[in-house]
């Protein structure tokens, strides 16, 4: 119990001090994870919607694969992107390894299946409800996908938030492709891992509390935006 109180105090002190290193780490964490989630949404939402609407051979297999990839271990995603971006790998000439861009790529790999799978499930329910109408009106498939995404936009926020939760919390992928370089690729989670290694458990947990508070704040904001937007839409 004593340790937990110390950690809370450490977190509080860090926030109050406005430490510039901490601010840099926090903003890097957020910009990487948010960018990854936005990119993953651009890829994953249409994919999820298409899987919900379009019937094609092998579709079930693809659905199973996407669902399974939700459980992709971050360290495997990291290793995959590492080998891709390494100087000895196929994209090595880009020189992206150990940069924030590499971390975004790894998180996109990690998060896209989560967003696609949740979106598919949600939109499939919606599709079942409105299917007759769309078919009656003779709406094309591409427009159906777009329209369904729009119709489900409030619920789909949950898919994006689930993706963000994964992105902000993971350490395995970004540690491998980012290298935890101080001032360049050190994020909240890799800093926590480092402080744990140094045996500074209080500071590590303090950083963890700050990370949790941030995720809480983002979720609260999303909830607020969703409720407001829904009210406006209903008027």
């Amino acid at each position: 119990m004593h340790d937990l109180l110390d950690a809370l105090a450490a977190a509080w002190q860090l926030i109050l001090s406005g430490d510039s290193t901490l601010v840099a780490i926090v903003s890097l964490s957020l910009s990487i994870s948010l960018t990854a989630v936005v990119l993953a949404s651009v890829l994953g939402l249409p994919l999820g919607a298409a899987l919900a609407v379009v019937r094609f051979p092998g579709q079930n297999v693809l659905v199973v694969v996407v669902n399974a990839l939700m459980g992709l271990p971050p360290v495997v995603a990291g290793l995959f992107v590492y080998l891709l971006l390494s100087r000895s790998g196929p994209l090595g000439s880009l020189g992206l390894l150990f940069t924030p861009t590499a971390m975004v790529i790894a998180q996109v790999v990690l998060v896209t299946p989560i967003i696609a799978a949740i979106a598919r499930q949600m939109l499939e329910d919606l599709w079942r409800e409105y299917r007759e109408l769309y078919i009656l009106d003779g709406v094309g498939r591409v427009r159906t996908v777009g329209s369904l995404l729009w119709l489900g936009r409030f619920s789909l926020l949950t898919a994006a938030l689930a993706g963000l939760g994964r992105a902000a919390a993971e350490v395995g992928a970004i540690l491998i492709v980012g290298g935890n370089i101080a001032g360049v690729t050190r994020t909240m989670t890799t800093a926590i891992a480092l402080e744990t290694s140094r045996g500074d458990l209080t500071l590590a947990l303090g950083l963890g509390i700050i990370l949790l508070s941030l995720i809480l704040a983002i979720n609260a904001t999303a909830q607020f935006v969703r409720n407001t937007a829904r009210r406006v839409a209903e008027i």
Partner: protein
Amino acid sequence: MTKLLRSLAAAFLLLLAASVAVAQEPFITVASTTSTEESGLFGYLLPAFTKETGIQVRVVAVGTGQALKIGERGDCDVVFVHDTPSELAFVEHGFGIDRREVMYNNFILVGPKSDPAHVEGGKDIVIAFRKIADTKAPFVARGDDSGTSKAEMRLWKEAGIDPKTAGGGWYRDTGSGMGPTLNTAAAMDGYTLSDRGTWLSFKNKQNLTIVVEGDRRLFNQYGVMLVNPVKHPHVKQDLGRKFSDWLISANGQKTIADYKINGAQLFFPNAKGSSS
């Protein structure tokens, strides 16, 4: 959708701006060991180098084995590690050039104050290892192909014991860095081999204390090498060489010696120019 695109563009620009701001200054990437980073040496040493040369140093701190692998694949410019046999092999296989010895410190055997294997105060590390195996006292091993792990395996070999097949569950292979291994040893009151630098800066010692030190077999040499530009033409050979030169210069050596925790010196400079 437009809102989504706009926030996407904004986030991307932010990231781009951040990476450009960093990329403007010349930098090298150094693959090094957890001991140099976790002990705080780099936090002390690198700003001095950057101040003198304007070159930023980006450190990827991993085990010696992984650091050499990063160099082998051409993903860093300089390798700064502590396992002489594998460093020499690295140069011999043409992955690295210009190996130089920079500094040393010592490995130490740490263990619980209760000392179930009765090794405290001993001066012979191999005898201590034998006693631990005989009493089946818990020993927490790195098992991650790091410099410390390789040194530990050499000591077991010298003791004539293969701990991995010894049985009895006393040998716990954690496959993790020095810090996590010390955390584990502290939690289970086990023995472990550590480098002195990480130990001195480690904050979660609990019941652990140094039980054996001072054996000459516990000598721990650090070496620096440039990644071979013939194998990997993109490496920043000139900037890397500046770093290597600075480490063995009078100024660099003095800065290494100046780094202390609670008055105790962590690393001892012993550069003598190029050795290969």
